[in-house]
């Protein structure tokens, strides 16, 4: 099926996520959609698949304009979208998930559905157990299930939004093979990514979005020179490669020390961890989603007590003391979901500073507002001291969260510190974190973005299937080597070498 959009516009309040887009995608091909964070890729895909409705413009399927009132309409018209995190029902089995609210007449019986599923899985090369519960599967497997569900429900156009974040290299290869097969059968595939290599490997055409516009107007045939695409995505400055700056060695005692720590979380076992995390370093945790980074961060933040072993902070044994004790010892934890876990949306920045006051019966409101004003100036937060945090933009929320870190902090644990931020905000955040590092903090962060890890880490720790690798100095690592390690290639050797 051939799909196109004309003058499509979608605004979110002041943000114009898609600004009079006009572009079309031909059948039987794989179309890449590129763009930096916030360029409007996901918005366009959601419009195409009926999740949201455009403010202006129209969507055309096979030359007929369509009004999509919901994802059901889109699927009925033959368009299905695989979300970044598959929108399935974790408590269901694969088969139940397939049957749930399937369009009428698609599956005549459970048995028919199972047969069709197994047949398709065989054709696409996806291994699948129809009776397995989805919450027991990896993200990659769930994505495969979701693709098959959409195809079986009659999708002629398959949209995938950043499908390769969070799946293994092997799964990515299987996915690409399947997508080629799907396109070869005459269907249309829209492949959203900001990874140039993947687009180059897979796609027949590419569409680059920037600030809600298609640049240059219309599709480009692949291949295209990489530098050209980068300049389209980021403008001229964005393509500049990061400069690696060697660090002076600091002889400070470790902020954290793990001794023979064993911990578990769900199916994941972390066994016999022995690590020292030195002050004055930025340590990046690399690994696929669910490889153990989060457990490690929770252990270091005191949110989870180890089953065995000891956790020391600044030389003091704080095993099982709870996150408040860790915090008092100078450990600061910055969660990825800022509004959900990080700050209190209904309270203002001044209220947050008041919360940090530790002495006195009464709130010293004047002092809190003073501190808030200082933070606003210093961190360039676009807000007043009394604006509720919830009404700040994501980047400003992140800056506010950083501003709230007391100067006494010795260790900062940051989960995806630039999640959802644009490049400029991300740079600003990182310069702050680097300043903290230079003051002698140890900063440990996790990120799904390998570029970010390569760019900002002094040392990198690779997590693979619950195993935590040794810290590798950034200088010894190349991007391709890191990618291999994350996928498990050479991981054993790495661990053994260090032992």
């Amino acid at each position, binding site marked *: 099926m051939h799909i196109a959009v004309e003058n499509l516009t979608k605004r979110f309040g002041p943000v114009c996520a898609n600004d009079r887009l006009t572009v079309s995608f031909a059948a039987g091909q794989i179309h890449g959609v590129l763009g930096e964070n916030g360029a409007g890729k996901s918005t366009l895909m959601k419009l195409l698949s009926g999740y949201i409705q455009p403010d202006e413009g129209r969507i055309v399927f096979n030359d007929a304009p369509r009004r999509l009132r919901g994802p059901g309409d889109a699927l009925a018209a033959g368009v299905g979208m695989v*979300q970044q995190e598959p929108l399935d029902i*974790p408590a*269901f089995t694969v088969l139940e998930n397939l049957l749930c609210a399937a*369009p009428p007449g698609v599956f005549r019986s459970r048995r028919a559905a199972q047969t069709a599923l197994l047949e398709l899985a065989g054709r696409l090369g996806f291994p699948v157990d129809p009776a397995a519960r989805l919450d027991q599967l990896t993200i990659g497997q769930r994505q495969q299930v979701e693709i098959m569900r959409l195809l079986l429900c009659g999708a002629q156009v398959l949209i995938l939004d950043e499908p390769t974040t969070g799946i293994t290299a092997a799964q990515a290869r299987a996915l690409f093979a399947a997508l080629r097969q799907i396109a070869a059968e005459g269907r249309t595939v829209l492949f959203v990514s900001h990874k140039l290599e993947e687009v180059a490997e897979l796609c027949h055409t590419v569409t680059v979005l920037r600030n809600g516009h298609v640049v240059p107007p219309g599709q480009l045939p692949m291949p295209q020179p990489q530098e050209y695409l980068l300049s389209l995505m980021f403008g001229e400055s964005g393509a500049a490669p990061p400069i690696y700056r060697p660090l002076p060695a600091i002889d400070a005692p470790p902020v954290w020390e793990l001794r023979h720590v064993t911990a578990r979380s769900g199916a994941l076992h972390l066994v016999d961890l022995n690590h020292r995390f030195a002050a004055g370093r930025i340590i990046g945790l690399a690994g696929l989603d669910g490889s153990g980074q989060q457990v490690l961060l929770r252990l270091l933040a005191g949110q989870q007590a180890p089953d065995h072993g000891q956790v020391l902070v600044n030389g003091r044994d704080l095993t099982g003391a709870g996150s408040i004790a860790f915090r008092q010892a100078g450990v600061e934890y910055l969660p990825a979901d800022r509004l959900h876990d990080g700050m209190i949306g209904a309270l203002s920045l001044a209220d947050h500073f008041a919360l940090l006051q530790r002495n006195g019966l009464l709130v010293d409101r004047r002092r809190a507002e003073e501190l808030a004003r200082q933070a606003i100036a210093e961190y360039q937060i676009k807000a007043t001291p009394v604006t509720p945090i919830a009404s700040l933009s994501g980047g400003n929320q992140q800056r506010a969260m950083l501003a709230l870190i007391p100067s006494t902090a010795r260790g900062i644990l940051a989960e995806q510190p630039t999640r959802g931020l644009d490049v400029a905000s991300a740079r600003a955040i990182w310069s702050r974190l680097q300043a903290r590092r230079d003051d002698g903090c140890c900063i440990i962060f996790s990120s799904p973005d390998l570029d970010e890890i390569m760019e900002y880490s002094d040392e990198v720790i690779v997590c693979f299937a619950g195993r935590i690798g040794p810290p590798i100095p950034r200088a010894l690592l190349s991007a391709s080597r890191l990618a291999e390690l994350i996928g498990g290639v050479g991981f054993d050797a790495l661990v053994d070498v260090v032992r």
Partner: protein
Amino acid sequence: MDQLWIDLAAVLAAASPLVIAAMGETLSERAGVINLSLDGTMLLAAMTGFAVALTTGNLLLGFAAAALVGAAVAAVLGLFSLTLGQSQTAVGFVLALLCTDLSSFLGAPFVRVPGPAVPFTPIPVLADVPVVGTLFFRHDPVIYASFLIIPATAYLLYGTRLGLIVRALGERPAAVYARGVDVTRWRYALLIAGGALVGIAGAAFSLDLKQGWSYRHTFGAGWIVLAIVIFGGWRPWRVALGCYLFAALEIVATRSQSALPNIPTQIVQVAPFVLMIFVLALVNLASSPAAMRRVATLPQIWQRPLLGAINRLRATAPAALGQPFERP
């Protein structure tokens, strides 16, 4: 031995309104909506059902009116929480109190007035089968209905495509929306259907089990049903088992007066509810991560049966229970 069967049959009968209401609540909670107004709804429906049956002389009309009342209260809850986005807990609680007082006020003329009752209807032939006949076939239609509604609910939830949608609504409404289903409309439908069952359960009190109407006639039954649904882990058969356990405990409480001559047995009647909460707490404690970690340190031969038992007992709430759904 005969006494045992008679007592068991009495338990099955006594639990019938609880079972009907609990299945209704299970349906709406499975779809992600807590109907906390249950206690008030049951009272208002019991009163209305009785009043209508009395004035029209028609039992069926009484039950229909009660179902209508239950559905209407559920619809109000839906309007305020699903459409207007208020907390289900707050609205449900206020409705519970409001309906209770409404039932007292409007029901005043009907207090302790003799009225119609569901007739005893043993099932020919089957009623005379020993034991089974006593247990299952010597009752009235309301009680038969309570027997049938359990497998019906279980089948609906686990055996039909509709059931897949219902369960998905409570687990992940966004996924249901992604499949082209109108989440809010379906939640309304299940909430209202569940409310109608709750209404019928109210009438089962006033027209059958505790004939007539009096102030706070169904004392606390609604709150008990809410607790039983949690206790039953939102699974129809287990929920029903909870209802029967509760009814059995109540009979024990009544009987205990002769057995415990020195204890004021009025206090025993609060026991079933307290026991329910207590057992729920124990089950939750047993399946807590700390307890699981403790279990993991035991020898293998112990681990397996223990984990099996805990998993069977564990009651996992629908993931999206009580949470509002907003279209993207």
